[in-house]
């Protein structure tokens, strides 16, 4: 079957097998390997991408279900050479070690901040509670998101925040 979607701001149309999972479509067909896969049961969250600005576990979404939607992967976070504040925050506050859960964590953080620019630590923990990290113990991830909250980007980010305000952000 044929599907069309927007990936990181670019419109694409691709032929797929109907049963293909979104994570495999992104990784194997589009070769965007920043989205990872870590379990079969929708528990680990390494596969999180944003669908219309909201985190989804791409191992539990058929590629066909993304037809007509806008998908953001980790490769779409930075604007050219300019990192998203969340990416910068993860580097500043040691929010990653092996880097495997990091793309999903950062995307959820992005969605959280778009919806709630000044979350408290509990809200950050709640937002990432559907995702696992085996390296960091989470405290530095919380600090990383707080760093990003304290260093917001420019006006276009503000516009996006207004658009997405009020939505649920737990993956």
């Amino acid at each position, binding site marked *: 079957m044929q599907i069309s979607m927007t990936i990181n701001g670019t419109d694409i149309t691709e032929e797929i*097998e109907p*049963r*293909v999972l979104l994570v*495999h479509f992104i*990784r*194997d067909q589009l*070769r*965007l*390997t*920043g*989205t*990872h*896969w*870590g*379990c*079969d*049961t929708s*528990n*680990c969250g*390494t596969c999180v991408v944003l669908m219309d600005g909201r985190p989804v576990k791409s191992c539990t979404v058929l590629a066909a279900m993304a037809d007509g939607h806008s998908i953001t*992967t*980790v*490769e779409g*976070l*930075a604007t050219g050479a300019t*990192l998203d504040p969340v*990416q*910068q925050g*993860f*580097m*500043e506050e*040691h929010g*990653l*070690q*092996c*880097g*495997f*859960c*990091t*793309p999903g964590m*950062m995307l959820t953080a992005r969605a959280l901040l778009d919806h709630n620019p000044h979350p408290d*630590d509990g809200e*950050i*923990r*709640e937002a*990432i*509670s*559907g*995702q*696992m*990290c*085996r*390296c*960091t*113990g*989470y*405290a*530095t*991830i*919380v600090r990383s998101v707080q760093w990003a909250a304290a260093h917001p980007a420019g006006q276009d980010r503000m516009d996006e925040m207004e658009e997405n305000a009020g939505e649920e952000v737990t993956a």
Partner: protein
Amino acid sequence: MTIIEERAANPAAGDENRPIGYGRIQRKEDPRFVRGKGHYVDDIVLPGMLHGAILRSPVAHARLVSIDTSAALAHPGVVAVITGQDLLGLKLAWAPTLSADVQAVLATDKVRFQGQEVAFVIAEDRYAARDALELIEVDYDVLPPVIDVRTALDPGAPVIRDDLEGRTDNHIFDWEAGNSAETDAVFASADVVVSQEVVYPRVHPAPMETCGAVADFEPIEGALTLYETSQAPHAHRTLFAIVSGIPEHKIRIVSPDIGGGFGNKVGIYPGYILAVVGSIVTGRPVKWMEDRSENLMSTSFARDYIMQGEIAATKDGKILAVRSTVLADHGAFNATAQPTKYPAGFFHIFTGSYDLQAAHCKVTGVYTNKAPGGVAYACSFRVTEAVYLVERLVDMLAHKLEMDPAKLRLMNLIKPEQFPYKNKTGWEYDSGNYEQALRKSMEMAGYDDLRREQQEKRARGELMGIGISFFTETVGAGPRKHMDIVGLGMADGAELRIHPTGKAVVRISVQSQGQGHETTFAQIVAEEIGIPPEDIDVVHGDTDQTPFGLGTYGSRSTPVSGAAVALVARKVREKAKFIAAAMLEARPEDLEWEKGRWFVKGDPSVGKTMAEIAMGAHGTVTLPEGIDGNLDAEVTYDPPNLTFPFGAYICVVDVDPGTGHVTVRRFIAVDDCGTRINPMIIEGQVHGGLTDGVGMALMQFIEFDKEGNNLGGTFMDYLIPTALEVPDWETGFTVTPSPHHPIGAKGIGESATVGSPPAIVNAVVDALAPFGITHMDMPCTPARVWEAMQGRPRPPI
């Protein structure tokens, strides 16, 4: 030795935030990871690459009657199906383990655990390979399994390893340390003895990235390139050469970015070998990536020790001796990864951090119908089990003597002046200041206030617990005369090259799974020769690019490879002196070093920077005799002893009396890993280990039913802590350098995993003390805690 913490930069650089050497700097590897440009095994796509999938046994113990692969072979996209019979013809059906046993690559005679490898399908894509697994028909003649390890040595127990000639039982080894007679004599005359069976259940490291490989065999050259999730690429290369018969110089192992290891990626799994066989058979590259259930059910588990422990003391609380007998469940194949001489790892560090008169332990290893493995999960070769046992026993002793557990520990800790301290089972602890660390953790915790709060809460019927653990780690194996893995001495190499423009590349034999080697090792070189870390590339994980060494596990990287890197940098620095002398037309002995340059004593304005010296080395200046025209060096470091990091942990829990749910409210961790290179990375290592501790103490375990079905085979059943189950960690440190390590560093990777479970369990038991509870086995799940409270005397209200 200079002790540096959060040190300022080279004063000349004038920027305290960018230290040249030790200190907090951002990680060099992070820019690629935050952009999603990490390069993991499953990201690799080679031209013509095929995908493999493994059919696994649904039962724990059965004779293989027949396998019919015809329907699978006929499935669209399937290229080949390999069975154990095919491997017998290639002499690859069995592979040696890291513990002098053999393991079936694909079953030929029997299956011996649920999840064991039975057949390998190779197809054009991963979906077709998975589809074809369903089409393989296997006829199993089910046999009674051995699941309860306590019955493994019963007369008449089914013999699991009838493949081994002459084998009539499930016994693997007996091993002991310490002096049995002396220990028994001390116990016989002691005022107080406390005994307890302590179970450290089977757990799994479960890194976020599962295990996998891409094998690419090139038939004309007879050369194999194997990309795999390996914590020890050099050791793997040697083993692959031995197993496959491919000459070692024709094998290149590449371990790219690894999504967490924790010991899970030390061993060689059948899947890696099958990818290689698949590539040889099909003439095309073959990728194999296991799924999460395969990871949890078939790759290296950890622990599974049933420990009978005893502690003897005077009535005043002087601890005199410990002894223990252990039943160790090694699963169906003895595939534990540890130094050859130590089949129970370093369990004999179970004497802990206390000055004892005697100690003895005996460990018996047995086969069961469970997955093989046994030394994994940040355990420092069974130090996790040892520390858990002794710290539980000390707490029980405190309870029996009605003493505060902190006070009892303070009375018995080895004193600073006793180091180097020879314990009663053969270790020589290098350095320590234990009391200082414990007192610091008590101060950070506000220990006395916590005890007051607990009393008040108890009076109101609320359940609050305070748990302490004090641990001594044993890491950085070798020395190689005592320690090897399958005959390979536990040493590590380093090579350093300074390019003509003063930029450097250091090649190391250990491999990062997230520990930040590209940063830490650059900082070690920077500290020694004064080139900024950003000008130093760290190359690792590729056997064609790096010197030989035993790899990353047992917290070895900084203690062993870190030492190699410091020494190779010093070698370069010394060579630079001679080159600088030639350039300055001075005598080498008249030169003095300051970070980054050699200058003439008494005339600091006359000198040469490392960059100038590097250019000189490759330039036209006449070099002294015996000095090659480069600024390169290499070393292999054989550690003279292990290092002994230590720490004091305090955990505060609240237990819901209605549900049994345990909340870790606070966790205070004071660690001493000797000299600290990058405090940010150290803190991250500690945080991760503490989270593992919460997992093991409260939720993670792999259980089996009577038939041998693995009940922890998914993340829905095997629970991993999320951000909601762990507190905001409170960390502190003391610095007691290792006297025998070139920079005094001791290693930190596993300290928190070793030290935290007993603190948490001690806290839970402390919370339940009003019920008369003195011990509870991990994990302290709500159900277990609730059950323990039922039918016991109620706490005072």
